[in-house]
């Protein structure tokens, strides 16, 4: 059974179409990553799944025939813009959110999660005394108590230091192992690549990519060269068959034009400089993202319009 089934959903705000005819199937027990530029419709889609917004057209089904309005009890939602009651103690706050969703006491679960994320000693402290990282951990715990069937996380790693981010990442993976379906949005393409089973890219309200990382990369083929050569970016300029250069500092990433021969580019490069490494790969998610939504794509869109 699919955890989420979105069919032809459209949501508009005045004259702005935030989500345009979106269809999506999220398999149960998977981690689905939503990527896309700011304002592309990720948060609106999440809010519709959680029943904060109602679709203008189309429908959303959860775990078979469940409707969002009757399913909020088993959804955990971490919004992008977070806020907690500052004057409550951590313990009281988490019990409040747990009871709000479940209707029963959640003391034991609160204690477990506080212990797990290293906050047990702060249980009786007021939220206003916590650091930003601690507050975000508390917000995460408030989202997963009681354990939901569907967890929706809007930018869960935003603003977290590496240690806190790792703790949350580990918790997400653990929840997935226990069968929880997770939808998360992120601007961190490396994280999406490493964490998500499926990736959805929304751009201007429309779905532009949907599938596993491999299936998405397969659409583009092996058209990317990663190279390290003496002279850096100067060495890779004007190579035959290369349409775009991305300078990463020590490494340069070259995108080949369709049908170009990478061997020809290698020969030309060796003739100009000493080459330390040269590899032909599929494009990264970041690269794919930029091809769709980057400045060059924007210019191309404007030109074609």
């Amino acid at each position, binding site marked *: 059974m699919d955890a989420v089934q979105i069919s032809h959903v459209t949501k508009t705000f005045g004259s702005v179409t935030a989500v345009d005819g979106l269809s999506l199937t999220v398999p149960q027990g998977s981690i689905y990553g939503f990527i896309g530029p700011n304002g592309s419709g990720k948060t609106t889609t999440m809010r519709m799944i*959680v029943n*904060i917004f109602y679709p203008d057209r189309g429908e959303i089904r959860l775990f078979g025939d469940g409707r969002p309005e009757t399913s909020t009890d088993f959804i955990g939602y971490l919004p992008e813009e*977070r*806020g*907690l009651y500052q004057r409550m103690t951590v313990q009281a706050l988490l019990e*409040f*959110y747990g009871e*709000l969703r479940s209707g029963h006491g959640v003391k034991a679960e609160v204690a477990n999660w506080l212990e797990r994320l290293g906050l047990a000693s702060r249980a009786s402290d007021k939220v206003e005394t916590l650091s930003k990282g601690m507050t975000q951990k508390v917000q995460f715990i408030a989202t997963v108590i009681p354990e939901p069937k569907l967890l929706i996380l809007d930018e869960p790693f935003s603003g977290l230091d590496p240690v806190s981010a790792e703790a949350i990442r580990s918790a997400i993976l653990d929840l997935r192992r226990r069968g929880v379906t997770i939808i998360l949005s992120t601007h961190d393409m490396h994280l999406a690549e490493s964490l998500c089973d499926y990736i959805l890219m929304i751009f201007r309200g429309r779905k532009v990519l949907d599938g596993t990382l491999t299936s998405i990369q397969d659409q583009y083929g092996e058209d990317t060269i990663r190279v390290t050569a003496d002279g850096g970016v100067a060495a890779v300029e004007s190579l035959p068959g290369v349409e775009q250069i991305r300078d990463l500092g020590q490494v340069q990433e070259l995108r080949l034009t369709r049908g170009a021969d990478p061997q020809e580019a290698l020969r030309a490069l060796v003739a100009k400089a000493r080459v330390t490494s040269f590899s032909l790969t599929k494009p990264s998610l970041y690269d794919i993202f930029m091809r769709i939504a980057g400045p060059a794509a924007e210019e191309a869109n404007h030109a074609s319009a």
Partner: protein
Amino acid sequence: MRVHKVLTIAKRDYIATVRTKAFLFGLVVAPILFGGGSIGMSFLNGKPDLADRHIAIIDHTGVVAGALVSAVREKNERELFDKKTHRQIEARYVFEVIAPAADPASSKDQLLALSGRVRSKRLVAFLEIGKDALRPPKPGDDADDFDLGTSKRTNPDTGVAYYTNAGGIDEMRRWLSGPISDGVRLARLTQFGIDIERNRDLAASVRIDGLSLLERDEKTGAVREARKRSELEVLVPAFTAVVLVMIVMVGSAPMLQSVTQDKSQRIVETLLGAASPFELMTGKVLGSVGVSVTSSLFYVIAGVAAVNALGVAGLLPLTIIPWFYAYLLTDVVMLCAFAAALGACCGTPQDAQNFAIVLLMPVLLPAFMLVTVLRQPNGALATAMSLVPPFTPILMLLRQALPSGVPAWQPWVGLAGALAFAAVTVWAASRIFRVAILMQGKPPKLAEAVRWALKG
């Protein structure tokens, strides 16, 4: 609607409010200020200013001043001292008769000089008795004798002019009106050749005693005698209405701030992930109702104890208490739903401050009308206003609590109207709340909010 969510939100909001120092402070301090003010007023009423009050009289008739001084002396003798303790309880009025000026120009100077003496506190007022003051007004005479545009007297020769700079409620003028009328009447009688000393009864004022109605005891059948009416018969019901105003304000005003705070601190979206907007709003309203009921219990218990201690328990029938709570709950639900919608429309606490006066209008307007209703509790205006749903809780309660009472159908019709209005307010507010709560930026315009209420 899932009840457990509503109750969980209500419980949190309730505890968050009643545990604050501000709530406890308000609960204790408000009645102290209120009660302290009343005690202070009654203390000051019991300690009147007993300094002599000097008043000058210019008498153009030549005969009224003497009679007036004599009438004042009689009133002084009657009211100056407490009959039991013989202690002075009123200020003595002392008159200084001044001969009128010879011509109109020096007359103005004379009035100016006397005005100066009032300003310098050597006099409290001065009277000018017109030369035609003895002539009673005839039918058709201008009763007002003032120019509407300039507010100057149009016929200074008739009547008595009373010049003073006394501020606020001029008790002195009320006190003097009796002796002045008596004095003029005595002068008129003398003019007609009637010997006042032998016919004093002709000019004697008649005392009017205010009494309650007689009633039959339902159990024994005995007739209860009429008793002297007390000012408390009005004050206790008025105080009850003021307490209702106070509790409703204390219960509903924080709602606006709370919703705005939840919105500006980004708490709302997390809550909406677990509860629907209607559940969230209902929970918050219920929390505020709890706060109001808590504070009302405190006030009601304290109020009942106070009226018992003062021995005036009979002035406020206990049957008013169920009505008090019916009106309280209706008003708090109505205002809290309104506050939730307003709070959802606010982007910042600044916006909430600007909207606060709009929120309190349904309480402040009837509060401003309390005196009007007290004057004529069963007049057309009081009846009509107490049947206007947002005003019903406060004005109908006051009318019911007054000894005159109201026709039995009116409270029921008023309450039904108020309940219906509260239901519509909750319905409309929940629609506005749902749309506005996640919006950022400037508050919506009124037309936009109305459209949300109507179309959702």
